[in-house]
């Protein structure tokens, strides 16, 4: 860990200003990821701007019926918030499938989106890694890649985005509000994270100095028929090998709308509206679910230790959709 300075920001503008004023400054929210990365010398900021005092800790209803999650609300407070539990149980379930109770108490909703990949090589400065050190090579492609991506990979990086929460946010079509040196803007969840391409050092599409202020959920929370299925190597406190956020709007047996997002398979939550559209107006059957799975997995490529995900993911998609269907039949 390098030596760094530290300030605590009281307003969003000062936080943005502080980042600009330093060479390699970083925000620190819950600290559950940035501190680990600093201890491993993966991140070496010269300055930390503590944003935990910013007035972004509210969960409030939006005029359009949606819900706004302040960027600094903790994962635990979000998951147990009555409105979230009632209207967005998919999000609640997803958050609770991640990390551990202690970590969720510290981790913030904003920070969760920015957590970096758990690629073993990214974490170990003794090995080459394009994401950590652009141009040094990707050790995972021919190395131990059991937890790595099978979709949207590039020859430069096959890392996954490890967040559970982001998978549910993708399925729910949340929008992310950001402030930066050039003012405010919003990004659809689908545009927030990115694929590695030839710039794996960038996990997302934010500009330098931008800060997430809130995550806005649209009014429809798919509260009746949903599921988050997380497959992992132990029952808790492990990242997903494959995860599925599934949400359905049913009319009897007929699907009015479907959402399916995958975690653990790509550099970002993996969604394909075309695949979901296959279910529109169709019956909620395993055969139909298999078609979606096939469409979602199109072009999947394994790298050895992770090839099993190509088999596992479709099974997980079908199971998650079956379970979502069986929840409540209206």
């Amino acid at each position, binding site marked *: *860990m*390098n*030596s760094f300075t530290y300030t605590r920001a009281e307003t969003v503008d000062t936080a943005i200003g502080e980042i600009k004023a330093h060479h390699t400054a970083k925000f620190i929210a819950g600290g559950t990821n940035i501190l680990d990365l600093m201890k*491993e*010398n993966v991140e070496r900021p010269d300055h930390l701007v503590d944003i935990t005092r910013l007035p972004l800790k509210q969960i409030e209803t939006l005029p359009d019926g949606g819900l706004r999650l302040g960027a600094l609300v903790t994962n635990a407070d979000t998951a147990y918030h009555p409105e979230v539990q009632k209207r967005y149980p998919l999000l609640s379930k997803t958050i609770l499938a991640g990390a551990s109770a202690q970590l969720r108490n510290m981790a913030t909703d904003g920070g969760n989106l920015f957590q970096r990949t*758990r690629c*073993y*090589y990214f*974490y*170990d*400065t*003794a*090995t080459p890694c394009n994401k950590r050190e652009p141009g040094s090579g990707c*050790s995972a492609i*021919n*190395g*131990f890649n*059991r937890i790595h991506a099978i979709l949207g990979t590039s020859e430069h990086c096959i890392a996954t985005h490890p967040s559970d929460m982001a998978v549910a946010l993708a399925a729910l079509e949340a929008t992310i509000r950001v402030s930066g040196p050039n003012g405010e803007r919003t990004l659809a969840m689908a545009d927030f994270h990115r694929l590695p391409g030839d710039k794996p050092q960038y996990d997302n599409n934010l500009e330098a100095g931008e800060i997430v202020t809130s995550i806005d959920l649209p009014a429809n929370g798919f509260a009746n028929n949903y599921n988050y299925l997380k*497959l992992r*190597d*132990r*029952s*808790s*406190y*492990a990242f997903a*090998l494959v995860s599925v956020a599934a949400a359905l709007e049913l009319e009897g047996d007929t699907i009015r709308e479907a959402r399916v997002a995958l975690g653990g398979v790509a550099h970002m939550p993996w969604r394909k509206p075309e695949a979901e559209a296959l279910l529109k107006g169709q019956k909620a059957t395993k055969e139909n679910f298999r078609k979606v799975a096939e469409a979602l997995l199109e072009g999947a490529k394994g790298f050895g230790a992770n090839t*099993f995900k190509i*088999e*596992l993911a479709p*099974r*997980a998609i*079908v*199971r998650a959709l079956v379970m979502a269907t069986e929840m409540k039949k209206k």
Partner: protein
Amino acid sequence: MAATTYVGKPISRVDGRAKVTGEAKYAGEFNTAGLVYGYVVSSAITKGKITKIDTSQALSIPGVLQVFTHENAPRPAHFDRSFKDDDAVAGAPLKPLYSPEIGFSMQPIALVVADTFEIARYAASLVEVEYKAEKPETDLTSKPKGHKAPKGKSGFTPPKDRGNAKKAFEMADVQFEAEYVHMPEHHNALEMFSSTVLMDEEGKLKIYDKTQSAFNSQKYITQVFGLSKDEARVVSPFVGGGFGSGLRPQYQLYLAVMAALELKRSVRVTLTRQQMFSLGHRPATLQTVSLGASEAGALQAIKHEALSETSRGEEYTEVIVNWSGSLYQCDNVKLDYYLRNLDVSTPMDMRAPGAATGVLATETAMDELSYKLGMDPLELRLLNYAEVNQLEGKPFSSKALRECYAQGAERFGWSRRNPVPRSTREGTKLIGWGMATGIWDAQQKKAAAKANLSVDGKLVVASGTADIGTGTYTAMSIIAAETLGLPIEAVTFKLGDTTLPEAPLEGGSWTVSSVGTAVQEACEAIGKKLFKLAKKLKDSPLKKAAFEDIAFADGRIQLKGNPSASVSIIETMRQTGINYIEEETTALPNFLKQMKYSRNTHSAVFVEVEVDEDLGQICVRRVVSAIAGGRVINPKTARSQILGGIVWGISMALHEESVLDHDFGRIMNHNLSEYHVPVNADIHDLEVIFVEEHDKIVNPLGAKGLGEIGLVGVAAAVGNAIYHATGKRVRDFPITLDKLL
């Protein structure tokens, strides 16, 4: 029953309060004014040579006192033998910072010492190193041939063959042969390795070390640095888990002492979790088991061959294949054990070393054979029950394994098992039942203890053993209290200090039997003196009694037949003007008596798993473990030991694996986020049954030791249950969901 009868009762840990309140201090928590901190720099390559090491930037940071590297560090001893601790194996031990050569991943290459831990850590990141790297060899399975394992340290005896296994196997009605593999595991006790070296004005050292033997650390330090025992006292009152990793001194001890002597100051060095993966480990092992049997299931041949990894410098051996020669009755047995030198750190004993590994293969193979024979797996084991230990050609001192099978099966409901694999399901879950046998040694070592009873009724007992979380403090307090008939609250037990009477390494499950016997003897010696004094008392009711006629209970010395004829212990001392009685004894095993018998603990483990048919997710729903371990001193801590063993067995079966990238020769999951052990949510219904054995051959206490037996056999039983559930046999451990798709 007297209120001071403790043996066999569930007694809570006497150190429990100190542990949960934080009062119990561990090696890295002792402080002193002026303490400075060392941070270890680990090699980024696995094999090769340091060509340049530049410490100037690190040294320029304010607060940095020194950076030790192979270029400037002292070389206090020349010969390998100086570096040999009590648990060392054949070969050349690591000599930290002696040379630029790199022999394993994360080998220590520098020590940065600074005023604060944070500065040391920061400066460590500024040490610039250039290497000439060579391609490391770390994959055991890449070339499945090694050399014959040498007769190693005490404990490993090359097993004897018997009969003609090759021929018997070829002629057997039913043959089964398979290869099993498991990857390395690291101990990963909660407490990181740490040494705090306090230097007094005279330059003498008081070393707080994380170790399973303060004496072993002292021996190592005095040999290497040429110090007298008086100059290097080692203290280790609490150890946050050992599992074998503390049996040998680790390099932080060497580095901390080296820095303290060089800088003439008190120094602490604590390893990071990542660095814990640069230490010894359970070696990866490749095994082939061949079983030949008659149609009826009688074993006619057992062949068991193991290939295990060791480092380039040292020949680590453990008892892997020998168990296959004692588990079952069979006249034709061939056991072979090979080692292969790889670019890894020297493996070390890890809980039930060898048995956890070897029995996993044998007991999986037995299960496989049972299906081939169309026989119940338990019935197959009963049919081949070993009444004597054929490997040693001796009877067992006691062996209640048959009762373990019976009681375990009864409690588990084994008789209701549908023998057909994949025959039971609940929705999408496949349910399976499996079982296995476990075996471990019951050993006693030489140990000394001293006891001091003062006239206020307080008994202080001491022996330089360790408590690595096993409950030594509690077990010894129980034995002492019961021997002298005192309330347990009146007893203080001291351990982990080289100024105390010498005890063996805490390992091999021999602490209760060895140190416990010494404690019992020291207390008995006090008892004898008390009795003599009691006889002298005016109107003593014990005047005519012999020592055999009396008992110590409820703070009194009483006639066995007539407890009302008694005198108070405190009164006896008071009236005879004695302020204290102190006795020290060294308890030796009765070799002549023990030699004639095989002394073992046994277990029968029954497991129920559920496996998701489509997704491969595995859940161990139920485990029943029946243990024959002699006399149980404290059922509460004994049960905890077995529970811990079961959890580790589940871990071995399903989770644990130090994953190497063989191109780098580096362990890639070197943190507790990615090196998986079970979490609470993975552990469900565990039941422990103790089948007591009355065995005065193993030692006077009759306790066989329970530290390791709880683990042996569990992983095999889990794997066997998975087969029964799914019809799919996985022979490379751990069994993860991808292997079941």
